[in-house]
């Protein structure tokens, strides 16, 4: 029984940060039809920026309230998004919209290569630590096990983000316009939607979500080169399993991936690495459009 609880909680914690990042990827695909291989880089840059912010914030005088460090991290992620989002969408990606969808994948791959090195050039190769926020929420005891409160905060954050996104898309006018663009870009444009504006905003939100995921994961890990490479794969897996472009799908898929990994780690460590790709491959083989699919299927 305890094992089940452990697996569920570990899975949930994992699912949280994965969801925050992957939902950004799926949103970008849904709106702009771009499979963003550079998504992991936004996560990494968010993590580095947050590490910087945390470093600055907590080295100040003791008078700063520790909890507001979280705000500093959010601001860092926001800064990353506001700078990189419009810059990359307007300054690079839009020149390839008229070409085959695979070309955009190649462009984001080239962007991944460039940003990998750019990150190293800006922040160096040594690890950064942003551990201060990790102790903000103390410890939580469940049964015989102690968990770090911060991890539960992450779960809460993921839930809040999920709800806000869902409400934003389904209950606001601009959100419904975005949904319309996801479902049918041409019709939306013909109906007078300013698709360009939607593109820039959606891409920026996607970047923000990735950066936010990175920022709030930073306190748990050592922020160093190599983050982007692994994160992008997990986001891919989640987005594909959930259905590219579906927010609800990303939520469920994150749970599946998080719990699958937890299961593997505890019960079958040899499968830890490939269980996620197995799930992804199985989904593609059996139901390529994913759990929920707002976009059209591209299988013959």
């Amino acid at each position, binding site marked *: 029984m305890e094992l089940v609880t452990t697996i569920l909680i570990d899975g949930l914690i994992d699912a949280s940060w994965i969801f925050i990042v992957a939902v950004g990827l799926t949103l970008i695909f849904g709106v702009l039809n771009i499979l963003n291989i550079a998504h992991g880089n936004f996560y990494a840059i968010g993590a580095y920026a947050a590490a910087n912010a945390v470093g600055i914030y907590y080295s100040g005088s003791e008078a700063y309230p520790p909890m507001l460090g979280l705000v500093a991290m959010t601001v860092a992620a926001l800064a990353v998004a506001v700078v990189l989002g419009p810059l990359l969408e307007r300054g690079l990606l839009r020149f390839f919209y008229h070409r085959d969808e695979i070309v955009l994948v190649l462009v984001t791959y080239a962007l991944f290569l460039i940003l990998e090195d750019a990150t190293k*050039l800006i922040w160096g190769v040594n690890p950064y630590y942003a551990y201060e926020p990790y102790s903000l929420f103390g410890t939580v005891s469940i049964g015989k096990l102690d968990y770090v409160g911060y991890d539960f905060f992450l779960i809460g954050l993921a839930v809040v983000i999920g709800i806000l996104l869902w409400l934003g898309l389904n209950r606001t006018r601009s959100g419904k316009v975005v949904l319309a663009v996801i479902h049918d870009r041409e019709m939306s444009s013909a109906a007078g939607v300013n698709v360009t504006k939607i593109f820039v905003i959606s891409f920026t939100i996607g970047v923000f979500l990735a950066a936010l995921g990175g920022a709030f994961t930073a306190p748990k890990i050592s922020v160093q080169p190599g983050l982007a490479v692994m994160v992008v794969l997990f986001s891919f897996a989640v987005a*594909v399993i959930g259905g590219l472009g579906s927010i609800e799908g990303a939520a469920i898929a994150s749970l599946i991936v998080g719990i699958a990994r937890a299961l593997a780690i505890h019960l079958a460590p040899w499968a830890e690495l490939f*269980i996620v790709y197995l799930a992804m491959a199985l989904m593609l083989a059996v139901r390529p459009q994913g759990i929920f699919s707002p976009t059209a299927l591209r299988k013959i």
Partner: protein
Amino acid sequence: MRSRFMVLVLAGVTLAILVALGEVLPSWSIFLLVTAAAKGLAALGLVLVVRSGLLSFGQGLFYCAGGYGAGLLMLWGGITDMTLLVLAGGVVALLFGLLTAPLLASYRGIFFATLTLALSMLMHGALTKADFLGGSDGLNLHSPTLFGMRPASAAEAVYMLYLFSSVLVVVVAVACRLHFDSLRGLLSLATRDNEIRVEYLGASVSRVISENFIAAAFLGGVGGALNAIAVGHIDPELAFWTTSGEFVFVAILSGYLSVGAVFASSILLELIRSFSSQYFPNAWQMSLGIFMLASILFLPNGIGGLIVRRKERDSEKDPA
């Protein structure tokens, strides 16, 4: 389209130049040419897939299968002859190709790319946890031999490998060039252009794509085997998606029209890598990214497009 005779003449000249270079160039640079040959062979396989209209992000699967096939044959089977090892690598990869092609042949575009990536990462994950295969550290290999000849020194070993690679590359290049110029080669391009029309002419698109994919697997395995014996080491990184990404880089830079362009692009990749690791270790990926963007923007048919297009346009006539 060149005549067969011209292709063979060009091949002979290229081989002669390569052999001559081998006498003149320092050991480090002929080693670089060997690794470029290995990667180039795998990238050439990817080009075959691209010629039928698809992009694979999992060519590393076959590169890795070939490497492990050759490596394990050497370590467990005691075979050290380069020719046998490279052939074995190709065959092992071919088997993986035969296994995966039926599943993959009904996918297109992004779904095909992601599925190939997932399969490749599956192999990576499986190998990393397979301790009896070396786990994430991989395995070290012995020195290879050629037709019973064992190299007396490190420099001689590299030289022997270089001569072998040169012959291998030229043979494969000739075969591919002749294939590109053949009816079957045209059929690949036709499939890429318009699958519906191909079906309505009576040919199976699935068959075209599968055959190309399986041939690509073989070439990936041959490249992987060559790389394994050149570097003397195999590990799961060979199947990691960034390895596949390098083949994508080469294929995009070279385009799918010229065989020579593929190896030229592969050499360029190796040059950038080794130059950068000496002087700008944290900028070589950025250079690749910039090259790729430039290629996508300005050379939609890659470097090869510059060479081949000129020839095809030579005999244009205005209609009367």
